């Protein structure tokens, strides 16, 4: 019964969404107040209905109602409660419902907190948002209905894919969707602005916090997914340029560019076409990611059960949504003239270069991801594009970007002075050169590229600190004054310092873990010792044990280094009984300089030993910490009063030296 109520609520929400997407838009066009007034309450009702549908599906999962086909295919009574709940979105149908839920939640947030928006803009934003919802809800109901019944009901279910039975992955999809779908709001803002033909500072000020929020979630979601791959797949790697990883990375690149472009649009009334364009492609790439994963046009380790009918539907949704927005852009875009002119060397110039490089980087990732499809369609064979392509194309584009990231915050708006900016950065430059040379000489003379990567990280970190020091006038005024200035820094400036500094730390981690990873794969018998990067691993025992819904094998390694370092690593291998599928749980011990990482594999029948994979992954913890600092930066910036949803829209004069945030 509850399932049927949920099904009904979902159908109803489709009709509400269709109404909300059309009538208020007509109202806004004709200035008909009563039609416009429908938008906000409709957004709230739509949200409430989808919450109801989602709750009903969750109920079916929690109570293991196997007469619901989706529950039978994806759940099992022997599963721990956490994974019964995460099973709701661990499958195609349920995850699309989560998608729709978050879409409606963002719409409801605009409806509830958007009182200081221009009424016509608010109504149009809600209208566009709801048109997207109409498409997504129709997609769910017509091709991916999670409420279908199964008759006769099986005695037990098929279980959730064991790889997904992990706390990290239970929260990965919701975070990622909060990011992906959060970009729908900036998209709706962009389309609404194109319809109105008006992009002004107030518009940009409104878009920024939504972009920040989406970016914050998207970053956290990507990092969580990457972290999961790192310890659960047991390959010692954390990024594989898999199509699905790329699908989340491309919107991230576009959203990062959007975040910066919107600053220029708000503060300098410039780069408006760029901001609109980036808002469209950021969400466009999110939709594209959904299409790639669900339609089966690209092979991926993550692929959901693919179905061409669904593919056609999402493709249509993509073409109508993004094609419509691009058509509007082509029509109205040229009229979005900004008033703010600027010299190439200026903060705007730096941010424009940032927009350009990030967009090209996203395009290159897109090309690599889709290349196998192009080749297949042109009947030129089947190929796959791997990490070498992405690394050789993507990394070189990031190098100038990181360099400019160091300098741009020192440039003034409108017309910057390159020589005075570089004078301020002489210490940072010196630290970079010394650090790079030391890395090259002391650690690895074979790879100048790795030393260069470390130098870039030092450059960005030093330049970010120099910028902060300049803002608090360190060594120019008494230390106490500097400290009090430090605490009075606007949170938005802290956001920039944290995000840029965090990226610097992450770059050091990425470089070191790619260049200096130590890997050792061998068959070990009990008592055997292997030396990996100065640490001695002794295989003590391998024991079988019984988990709640799996059979496990746990290896015990004693790791020693010198006399005073000793610890135990216990990697596991699990076979989940319901799906007979093995998974790996790597044992990881993080240290300041890197992760000790151990995996136990199958028994080698011939020798009676076990296959073990032991790694030393240098600076990997830096990568996670750096990424978390970036997320923290976005969150701090979001908490700035000027960004807060509902903050008064008083136009604020910005002095020439204001931070880029």
């Amino acid at each position, binding site marked *: 019964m509850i399932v049927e109520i949920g099904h009904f609520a979902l159908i109803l929400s489709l009709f509400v969404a269709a109404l909300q997407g059309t009538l208020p838009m007509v109202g806004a066009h004709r200035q008909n107040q009563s039609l416009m007034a429908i938008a906000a309450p409709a957004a709230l009702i739509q949200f409430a209905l989808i919450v109801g549908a989602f709750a009903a599906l969750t109920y079916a999962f929690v109570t293991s109602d196997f007469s619901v086909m989706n529950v039978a*295919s994806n759940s099992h009574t022997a599963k721990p409660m956490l994974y019964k709940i995460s099973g709701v979105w661990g499958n195609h149908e349920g995850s699309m419902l989560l998608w729709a839920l978050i879409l409606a939640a963002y719409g409801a947030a605009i409806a509830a907190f958007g009182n200081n928006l221009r009424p016509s803009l608010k109504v149009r934003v809600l209208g566009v948002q709801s048109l997207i919802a109409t498409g997504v809800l129709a997609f769910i109901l017509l091709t991916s209905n999670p409420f279908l019944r199964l008759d006769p009901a099986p005695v037990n279910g*098929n279980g959730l894919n064991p790889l997904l039975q992990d706390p990290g992955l239970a929260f990965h999809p919701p975070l990622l969707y909060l990011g992906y779908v959060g970009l729908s709001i900036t998209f709706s803002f962009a389309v609404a602005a194109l319809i109105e033909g008006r992009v002004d500072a107030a518009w940009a000020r409104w878009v920024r916090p939504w972009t920040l929020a989406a970016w914050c979630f998207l970053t956290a979601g990507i990092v969580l997914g990457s972290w999961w791959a790192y310890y659960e797949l047991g390959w010692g790697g954390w990024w594989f340029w898999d199509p699905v990883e790329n699908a989340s990375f491309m919107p991230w690149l576009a959203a990062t560019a959007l975040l910066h472009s919107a600053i220029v649009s708000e503060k300098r009334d410039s780069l408006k*076409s760029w901001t609109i364009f980036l808002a469209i492609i950021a969400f466009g790439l999110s939709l594209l990611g959904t299409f790639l994963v669900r339609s089966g046009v*690209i092979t991926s380790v993550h692929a959901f059960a693919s179905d061409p009918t669904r593919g056609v539907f999402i493709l249509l949704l993509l073409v109508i949504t993004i*094609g419509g927005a691009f058509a509007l852009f082509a029509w109205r875009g*040229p009229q979005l003239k900004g008033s703010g002119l600027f010299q190439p060397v200026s903060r705007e110039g730096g941010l424009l270069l940032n927009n350009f490089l990030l967009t090209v980087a996203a395009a290159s990732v897109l090309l690599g991801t889709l290349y196998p*499809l*192009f080749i*297949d369609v042109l009947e030129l064979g089947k190929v796959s594009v791997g990490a070498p392509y992405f690394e050789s194309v993507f990394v070189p584009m990031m190098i100038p970007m990181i360099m400019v990231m160091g300098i741009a915050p020192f440039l003034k708006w409108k017309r910057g002075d390159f020589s005075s900016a570089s004078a301020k950065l002489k210490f940072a430059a010196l630290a970079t050169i010394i650090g790079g040379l030391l890395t090259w000489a002391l650690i690895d003379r074979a790879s100048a590229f790795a030393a260069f990567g470390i130098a870039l990280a030092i450059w960005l970190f030093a330049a970010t600190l120099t910028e902060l020091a300049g803002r608090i006038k360190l060594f120019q005024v008494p230390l106490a004054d500097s400290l009090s200035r430090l605490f009075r820094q606007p949170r938005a400036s802290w956001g920039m310092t944290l995000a840029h500094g965090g990226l610097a730390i992450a770059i050091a981690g990425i470089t070191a873990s790619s260049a200096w990873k130590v890997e050792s794969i061998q068959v070990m018998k009990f008592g055997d010792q292997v030396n990996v990067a100065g640490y001695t691993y002794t295989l003590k025992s391998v024991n079988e044990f019984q988990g709640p819904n799996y059979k496990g094998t746990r290896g015990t390694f004693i790791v020693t280094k010198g006399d005073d370092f000793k610890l135990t690593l216990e990697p596991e291998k699990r076979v989940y009984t319901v799906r*007979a599928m093995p998974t790996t749980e790597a044992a990881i011990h993080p240290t300041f300089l890197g992760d000790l990482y151990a995996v136990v594999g199958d028994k080698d029948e011939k020798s009676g030993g076990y296959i073990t994979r032991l790694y030393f992954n240098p600076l990997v913890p830096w990568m996670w910490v750096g990424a978390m600092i970036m997320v923290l930066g976005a969150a701090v910036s979001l908490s700035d009063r000027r960004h807060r949803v509902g903050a008064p829209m008083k136009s604020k004069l910005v002095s020439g030296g204001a931070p880029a945030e």
Partner: protein
Amino acid sequence: MNRLAYYIPLVLLGILAVYFAAGLGRDPKSLESVLIDQKVPEFSLPPIAGSSKGLSNTDLKNQVVLVNVFGSWCVACRVEHPFLMDLKEKNIVPVYGIDWREPDRKAGPRWLKKYGDPYTLIGDDPISKGAIAFGVTGAPETFFVDKNGLIRYKHMGPITAQNWSRTLKPILERLRKE
């Protein structure tokens, strides 16, 4: 900026959409199995409990047959099961079964007794010997083996009336004509 430049995104999206539309009809995994057009690897599986004959590669010759990987634990197998019964009752094509990864010896026979047995011969495969020989990635999965004992096609997921009439039946007819 030139007005025309604003049309670039629209044009690029159009081109992408054409490729996507063309790509939808294709299966990127269709060539994934390296065993396609190869001889069925040598394998020999014992019978399931209560049956006298198992399944080995020598059973698969002289006619076009299907080899279906199933298990009593697999809900999707339950979904395709009535269709396999239909194939048997209408005598459309012989289906050989690989009973994969049963939790215990009795689970498979119990399941077949309850729902019916559509298979000509069944091999018991608790430790994935047969499944590895065929390169199985999940259940259910169905292989088309031709008269010469070559694996010609691999179907992943349940067989339904829809994908049978659209894809699988034409393949069967083509293989029979060879």
